[in-house]
């Protein structure tokens, strides 16, 4: 009798969405600013929410699995904001779209229509970026995804 009860409990658990945000995602932004370090001036990234036209921005999506089970098929889709020009992403698994999210691929494989036919897509043509993690995120694990753009 007891064993049956346990089995039922195990079957029931996954359907209770008791962890609404098991994987929490923070979306932060960093801006390149000149900073003088030991007498030499170079560009560093500073967390910022105020920008000027022309500023180089790095958007960072930080995820954390706070649950006790792994999270799988983790995917983030981000439409590039109107006032930002996409420049690139360091994440090898990222895919981009240049047609409003209809089709996806790596930038090198994509083409856009032009007056004279089709041309290779350029970073500024990107309308969306998407990450789809192949592996599950273990419980308690976290990671970062990012892309780079310029403020119009």
């Amino acid at each position, binding site marked *: 009798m007891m064993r049956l009860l346990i089995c039922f409990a195990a079957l029931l658990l*996954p359907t209770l969405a008791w962890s609404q945000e098991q994987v929490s995602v923070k979306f932060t*932004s960093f801006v390149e600013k000149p900073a003088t370090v030991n007498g030499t001036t170079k560009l560093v990234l500073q967390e910022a929410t*105020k*920008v*000027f036209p022309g500023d180089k921005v790095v958007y960072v999506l930080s995820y954390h699995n706070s649950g006790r089970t792994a*999270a799988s098929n983790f995917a983030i889709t*981000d439409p*590039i904001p109107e*006032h930002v020009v996409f420049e690139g992403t360091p994440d090898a698994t990222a895919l981009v779209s240049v047609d409003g999210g209809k089709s996806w691929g790596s930038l090198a494989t994509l083409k856009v229509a032009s007056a004279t036919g089709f041309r290779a897509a350029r970073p500024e043509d990107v309308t969306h970026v998407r990450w789809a993690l192949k592996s599950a995120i273990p419980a308690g694990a976290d990671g970062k995804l990012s892309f780079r753009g310029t403020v*119009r």
Partner: protein
Amino acid sequence: MTFKIKLLAGSAGLTLAVLGATPSFATGTTAGTVITNTANVNYTVGGVAQTQQSAVNTLTVDRKVIVAATVVDTAAVSVTPGQVNPVMVFSVVNSGNSVIDVDLAAAVQATATATNFSKTTSFLAGSSIVLHTGSATGPVVTYLDELAVDTPTTIYAVDTTAYVSGTPTSGAIPLATANGAFSGITLTATARQGGAAGSEGAVISTSTPYGGANNVFADVANTLATTGAVDAANNGVSIAADVFQVTAANLAITKTSTIISDPINGTTSPKAIPGATVRYCIQVANGAGAATATAPVVTDNLSTLPVTFVAGSIKINGSVTGAVCNWDGSAGGSYTAPTVSGTLADVAAATTKTLYFDVTIN
């Protein structure tokens, strides 16, 4: 907080972007714009899709205030002593990312000031300067209202200082000003808050945001006078300097007399005896590098001389050889007792024209 993120390989060779360098954005995002980036997150747990969540980031675009005043004239503006309403031409542009008002003020630079076009000021033009847009007779302005980004406005600075009769040191370009003198006029353009058409906006402060954005000044410094109005970068103010250059005629008047004939000797070694004919020649010589003397009027009052004017003898626009008049003038001028007068043609720099006439010794 400084966060070190590995930059993309292609950007490893980034050079320093200097704040205040010539703005390269033609149309920057308007100040106060909020850039909202919404990412959609999906995942499964135990094979069950979780509710999609959004991760949101907002960036606010701050205000970069860039105002620039420049001189349109490509060389010092040539003026003559006594000239009325001389004009200098400037241009003002807003190269920031929001509409601004621009306060305008014109002032005469002090003398002995190094100014534009590699000149040094040596006289003071009149200080009543009125600013116009459109043309030298267009609408008068003291500020530019709601100046849009990247739309240069031409400013005509007209020196309206009036000449005070009998005072050669008065007027826009005083009569007493010598050939080759320079006067500098500065136009100071100060960025003011935009947003309210029809009235001049308040002073912009970097510590007081407005319109939902912080303010940063990013104007460049015009290299200008070493004294007086010195333009600084990144202060919301831009100063341009234009120069008046006085080109005056430099006339020297000389009068010579030649005995043409006498009743006894005729034209052979004539003597200055009663009845002799004497020719007076008035030479008008303009110095080298001077402005052309336009239609100089020559007059000669004979009332103190014991002579009688020979009617019809006036000739104008004769030439000289060295200091000696040539008798190559043409009929002209007039005599109204006791004064001979005549108007010469324009006398260019380094040239001489003459008026000559005959009298008989009483």
